[in-house]
């Protein structure tokens, strides 16, 4: 539980830094690109010194492309959303994105959802409706 607590704390701090970037009027493109580059730098050190190299194949390249496009546009749009809404509410909606891989599992991998997951899927649109921010502008 110690590692999970630290993981939650760092992710929480990261999301409030997104709000800080928006409050300080930072360039969303630069903030998004620099944050990804820093992760690349740190993980490449890990790969070089601990795993002794980078391994890849065509499958990994395809999945990496999907992941890269998704995280770039996901976080860029998240930064834009913070201009109009609260970080707490926006982060909550982002956390609910877990529903998409669950739906993909049902549609693509033919997994059958149990009653709890079905109820969770049903509750999702209702929670987003309640969380909805009134427009500040636009």
């Amino acid at each position, binding site marked *: *539980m110690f590692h999970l607590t*630290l*993981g*939650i704390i760092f992710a*929480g*701090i990261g999301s*409030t*830094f997104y*709000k*800080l*970037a928006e409050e*300080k009027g*930072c*360039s969303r*493109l*630069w*903030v*998004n690109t*620099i*944050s*990804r580059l820093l*992760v*690349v730098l*740190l993980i490449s050190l890990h790969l070089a010194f601990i795993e002794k190299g980078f391994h890849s194949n065509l*499958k*990994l*390249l395809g*999945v*990496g492309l*999907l*992941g*890269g496009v*998704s995280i*770039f*546009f*996901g976080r860029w*749009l*998240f930064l834009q*959303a913070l201009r109009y*809404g*609260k*970080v*707490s509410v926006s982060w*909550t*909606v982002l956390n*609910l*994105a*877990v529903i*998409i*891989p669950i739906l993909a*599992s049902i549609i693509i*991998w033919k997994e059958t959802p149990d009653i709890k*997951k079905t*109820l*969770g899927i049903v509750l999702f649109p209702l*929670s*987003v409706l*309640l*969380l909805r921010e009134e427009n500040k*502008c636009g």
Partner: protein
Amino acid sequence: MWLSLILLSFFFEGLLGVAEKMVRELNLGEMRNDYIFLYNLIAAFIGGLFLIRERERPGSKDLFIGSLIGLAFYFAAFFCLQAILELPGIIYFSVAGVGGILLVTSLSHLIWREKLKKKQVYGLTLACLSLVLLTI
């Protein structure tokens, strides 16, 4: 405007979850760190292309806050990967989801003085419940 932006962001964040599911389904689990390296590299590359097109120059606060975000999420991923090896998935996913929401809500109240409306508190509670149901 907020709703359309956050729903688009939600969609892309969900696709990232699908990509992670594909890592498992395609038996690429042993290459997980290579995957993290690759998708961040691709995201940085896309960002670079946009920056060249827009001819934007960075300010010191862009570099500083961008680096802080990168550091925070790198350590978050590092500790979460450790945690997922130690804890059963049923506990990990529920605690990570609900704990993250509650922490960010508390931090945004303390730092940004954000106040939630009554219906948003209900929405937050419902979202936590939905998240627990989806991940257990």
